[in-house]
């Protein structure tokens, strides 16, 4: 299939539909509005459901209901809207439902602004909603990756019965890049996908089959039962931590004098700076976590070569993933940080200038 020039917001919507998503509930917010508009336009053409909900809260609870029926369902929003969804996300995690949530991050806190930012890393990877739970969090750095992550997110959600968050930002949402899509799933394939959930989801009793009573629920009033439930969740999270570490190494080699760690939009700017330094004979590596939960702690530690004097973290926030990098590095070498906030994106020249001080 030929490549198509598309905005990230539209590409992830198209990819989700191709991955078998036939239910989408959301509320308009900048800078993700092209996503909801693409769904409004396209869902009717594939006999899918599109609802512009009355609120972010309602949208995520519609997701809870549809996901409880074992169907591939998605919602999307931008930072302030994701905060509103956090109640529902906690319930979805507690009830172990597969669902996909897209966050096209903007500047915060509060209403902040509508420019790209990475300030929701803590919210996405450390909780956000109440209670002990984890989201699988995928962080794209290109429009192509943003699109590819839609189908990956649905597969992971189905596999682990866990909500998956795609943590992008206003840059990736608004930027146009060439995208190549995977073939669309057929109606038969989508129906087959739904069958994997029939043992627990809300579904009709087949004639002649034993009568079932499935409960979609996160309430366990007996503390010993809740303890068991939360411990079971943690066993699942441990398996996800074993299986789903994903990262990219860029120019990581024995000559590295600095190792950078950056994710999403920030990482592609760091790559440009590294290429420029390489031309000047200065060796800098980059490790880019692709999944930011589970986090590649061991891989970050292993990427620190013998000549590395410093690990440098660059983010579009005031240092959030920085804390995970410090856990990974564990004092082996100094960890430095530089970030930009307010929705202002740093330039390759600025990153290069920061890295040059290390030589």
């Amino acid at each position: 299939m030929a490549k198509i020039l598309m905005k990230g917001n539209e590409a992830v919507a198209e990819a989700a539909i191709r991955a078998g998503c036939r239910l989408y509930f959301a509320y308009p917010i900048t800078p993700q509005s092209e996503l909801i508009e693409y769904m409004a336009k396209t869902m009717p053409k594939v006999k899918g459901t599109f609802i512009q909900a009355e609120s972010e809260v309602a949208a995520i609870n519609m997701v809870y209901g549809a996901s409880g029926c074992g169907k591939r369902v998605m919602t999307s929003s931008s930072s302030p809207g994701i905060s509103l969804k956090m109640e529902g996300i906690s319930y979805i995690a507690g009830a172990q439902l597969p669902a996909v949530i897209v966050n096209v991050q903007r500047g915060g806190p509060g209403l902040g602004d509508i420019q790209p930012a990475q300030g929701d890393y803590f919210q996405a990877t450390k909780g956000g909603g109440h209670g002990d739970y984890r989201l699988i969090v995928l962080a794209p750095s290109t429009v192509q990756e943003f699109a590819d992550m839609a189908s990956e997110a649905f597969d992971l959600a189905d596999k682990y019965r866990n909500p998956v968050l795609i943590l992008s930002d206003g840059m990736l949402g608004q930027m146009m890049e060439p995208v190549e899509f995977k073939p669309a799933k057929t109606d038969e394939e989508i129906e087959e996908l739904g069958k994997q959930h029939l043992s627990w989801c809300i579904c009709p009793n087949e004639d002649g089959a034993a009568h079932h009573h499935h409960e979609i629920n996160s309430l366990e009033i007996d503390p010993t039962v809740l303890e068991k439930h939360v411990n079971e969740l943690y066993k699942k999270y441990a398996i996800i931590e074993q299986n789903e570490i994903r990262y990219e190494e860029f120019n990581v080699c024995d000559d590295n004098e600095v190792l950078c760690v950056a994710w999403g939009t920030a990482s592609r700017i760091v790559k440009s700076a590294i290429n420029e330094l390489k031309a000047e004979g200065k060796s800098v590596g980059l490790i880019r976590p692709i999944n930011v939960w589970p986090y590649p702690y061991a891989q970050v530690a292993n990427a620190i070569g013998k000549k590395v004097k410093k690990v440098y973290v660059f983010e579009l926030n005031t240092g959030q993933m920085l804390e995970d990098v410090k856990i990974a590095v564990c004092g082996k070498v100094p960890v430095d940080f530089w970030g930009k906030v307010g929705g202002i994106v740093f330039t390759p020249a600025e990153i290069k200038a920061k890295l040059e001080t290390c030589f």
Partner: protein
Amino acid sequence: MEIIAQRPKALTKLGFTYCPGCLHGVAHRLIAEAVDEMELNNVMCGVAPVGCSVFAYKFFDFDMAEAAHGRAPAVATGMKRARPDMHVFTYQGDGDLAAIGTAEIVHAANRGEHISVFFVNNAIYGMTGGQMAPTTLPEMKTTTSPYGRKTDDIGFPIRMSELISTLVAPYYIERVSLLSPAEIIKAKKAVAKAIRYNKERRGFTFVELISTCPTNWGIDPIKSRDWARENMLPFFKIQCFRDKGEGVE
């Protein structure tokens, strides 16, 4: 031996955990009887609220979802859209539906979602221990209106059936009461009609059931029914607000 009365199949064998004299058990039974009579046991599903009936998902013997506080109509929307072959209802109390979940119920009704909503109004928060509800009557004492509900401070009770009646889409809206056997028989007809309309894909149906809370009102079960009759029914009038199936607009 002929069986003339038995536990509906649509209820699980689990005994209700409600307070003595509570009418939730009656309301549950009415829904279950209607499901049995229409033989919808294999295609029925429901959404339980937060409140005293939070465990309703354990009591109905078909698939159930437990929603966050007030969100049942949104959850039911997702369920019905995902499984149009199933019949979906929500069961909600006054705090759930008329306070924290006001947006969800108004907009599900306004979309004309093909769901049935059973709204149990007893003018108080039961599960949390007797706090003021959006339907608490003027001057009524609760733990958070210890000097009586002052309407110049906190406003008047919300009449949800009337409020929903201002919307164009809803197909059937009726307020009934559970205060005597005769009223329960009438309530049963309304509950069954709401589910039948749902089955026939007519549109959004809403039945408000006026109930009691002997425990938190501090009135014994029999007298609490008299209290409700004297105090609630003048404000919350028993009425069919809309029945498009029978020309009531």
